[in-house]
């Protein structure tokens, strides 16, 4: 079984539109949306949920006001400035609480409770392109690498069960915890970039991250015709660093038109774009 992740470093370069199209083009895969923070793939795939489960991760501190003697130990020891003193009361601000348990352990009155944190839901769904594993964190919840790891584990189990040979993952922007969690043990990272200073800068950082984990990198330049000079810079960078260039996609609002129709771009008939995306996918398939 092979695992492929589509990432970008910079947000908004076209990861999800392309992942959706790849899901259409490959018949033998499980689809997995690993952007658990702001997932969008479901907008194109209209999944029907088969299984929904709670994602519970870590704990959060809550001060029992009946027991609290206002000694202030918790606020002094909290390194996240999560405990404030308002109206003669010590209160934990949930958005700042890291769930480290320091206040719970050091409170002399044992006045800090530590309930589990219900952070979001995860789903197994059916789509017109096959089974999809996805999730949605609650707004403001911890963007957990743990949820990404859990989804990948579920996707692998599903692939085994259905006898699929590929897990196609849509990743998150950035280079932090969710992206790191989505890279471990992946066979290929497809980085979608754009010919802008931000696109190249962020490609370099995310490709360096992939190299750090010894993961092979393939690059798609989206909107390549927006700036030929920047596109050449990206191509040079890829050649120097032995990253495969698998496609140049032109700037075209057909992606948005497809999105408005809740379709992937390869479902739009009689378009050159469908052909170009198909050729790109064939090159990626050869690398797997």
């Amino acid at each position, binding site marked *: 079984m092979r695992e492929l992740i589509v990432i970008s470093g910079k947000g908004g370069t076209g990861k999800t539109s392309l992942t959706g199209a790849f899901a259409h083009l490959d018949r033998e895969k499980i689809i997995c949306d690993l952007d658990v923070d702001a997932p969008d793939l479901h907008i194109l795939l209209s999944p029907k949920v088969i299984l929904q489960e709670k994602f519970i991760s*870590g704990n959060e501190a809550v001060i029992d006001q009946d027991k609290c003697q206002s000694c202030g130990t918790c606020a002094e020891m909290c390194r996240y400035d999560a405990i404030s003193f308002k109206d003669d009361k010590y209160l934990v601000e949930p958005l700042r609480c*890291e769930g480290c348990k*320091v206040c719970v352990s050091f409170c002399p009155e044992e006045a800090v409770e530590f309930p589990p944190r219900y952070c979001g839901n995860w789903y197994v769904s059916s789509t017109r392109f096959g089974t999809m594993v996805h999730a949605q964190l609650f707004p403001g919840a911890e963007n957990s690498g743990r949820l990404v790891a859990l989804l990948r584990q579920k996707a692998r189990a599903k692939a085994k069960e259905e006898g699929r040979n590929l897990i196609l993952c849509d990743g998150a922007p950035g280079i932090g915890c969710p992206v790191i969690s989505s890279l471990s043990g992946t066979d290929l990272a497809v980085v979608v970039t754009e010919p802008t*200073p931000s696109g190249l800068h962020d490609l370099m950082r995310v490709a360096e991250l992939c190299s750090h984990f010894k993961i092979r990198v393939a690059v798609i330049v989206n909107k390549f015709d927006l700036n030929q000079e920047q596109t050449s810079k990206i191509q040079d960078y890829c050649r120097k660093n032995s990253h495969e260039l698998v496609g140049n996609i032109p700037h075209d609002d057909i992606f948005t038109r497809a999105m408005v129709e809740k379709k992937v771009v390869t479902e739009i008939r009689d378009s050159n774009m469908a052909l170009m995306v198909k050729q790109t996918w064939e090159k990626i398939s050869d690398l797997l």
Partner: protein
Amino acid sequence: MDPKRKSNLIVSIASGKGGTGKTTVSASLACVWKKPVLAVDLDVEEPNLHLFLNPEISHQEKIYLETPVVDESKCTLCRMCSDLCQFQAIKVMGETLLTFTEMCHGCGGCLAICPEKALSPGQRELGILSQGSSLGKISFLMGSLRVGEAMSPPLMTIVKKRMMEILGKERADAIIDAPPGVSCPAVCAVMDSDLIILVTEPTPFGFHDFRLAWESFSSMGKPMAVVINRAGLGDSSVYRFCDEKKLPILASIPYDRNIAQAYSKGQVVARLSPELEHKFSDLARELQGYDREAAYA
């Protein structure tokens, strides 16, 4: 964050979805801002604001997180530290206490709880903080996460502390370029600002993530306003939503290949035409107006 701070305005530019134009709006606002302004890049995973403001960097420092170091000669393997640690960063394996520094969140609990004083503070590099100025009038501050480092909020917190120190001295306003998303890094970026500008594009993805951002940030009770980028693309959902929730749309940047091309050359969009400059000056004036109302409230 600092109750004494009254005269400065802190505006964060956030979005939910990536690539909607946060950096475009942040750079443009910084360039047309009438008062002294500090431009802060808190998208530490992929900071891009410097690519448009081209600041001269006058100061750089490495930022560290405090992590534990074990003195084996003092450790009695009592496990109080490993029982406390919620992040699997310190564990007894056989007859040894091991630390997994990259898992550590820097809470300091193990150091405080050890009865034998067998743990001392060590450090893990989080990234680099850079300070400088651009065009002689914009103060500049950014955090850049070390590639391979998983946690961005600890570095963001330190950059925010530096921002407050600078604002305390310079009496400038601050414009924060926030990371995409709606979970902990994005919340961390906007939580200390006075108002939040949500930049979105009127596409289904843009709208979906915009709504998540609105839900996520609403709980903080801060005023929010909207800038629509690539207006003319997509559909009308975002307009209907703003109308329904009484979210003011303060500016609208048209969908225009010329703007995309200028961005691709690292140009600041507010500098492209008198119309665009006007649009951002109006936006800046509107935001600065909010400052006065707040100060007199």
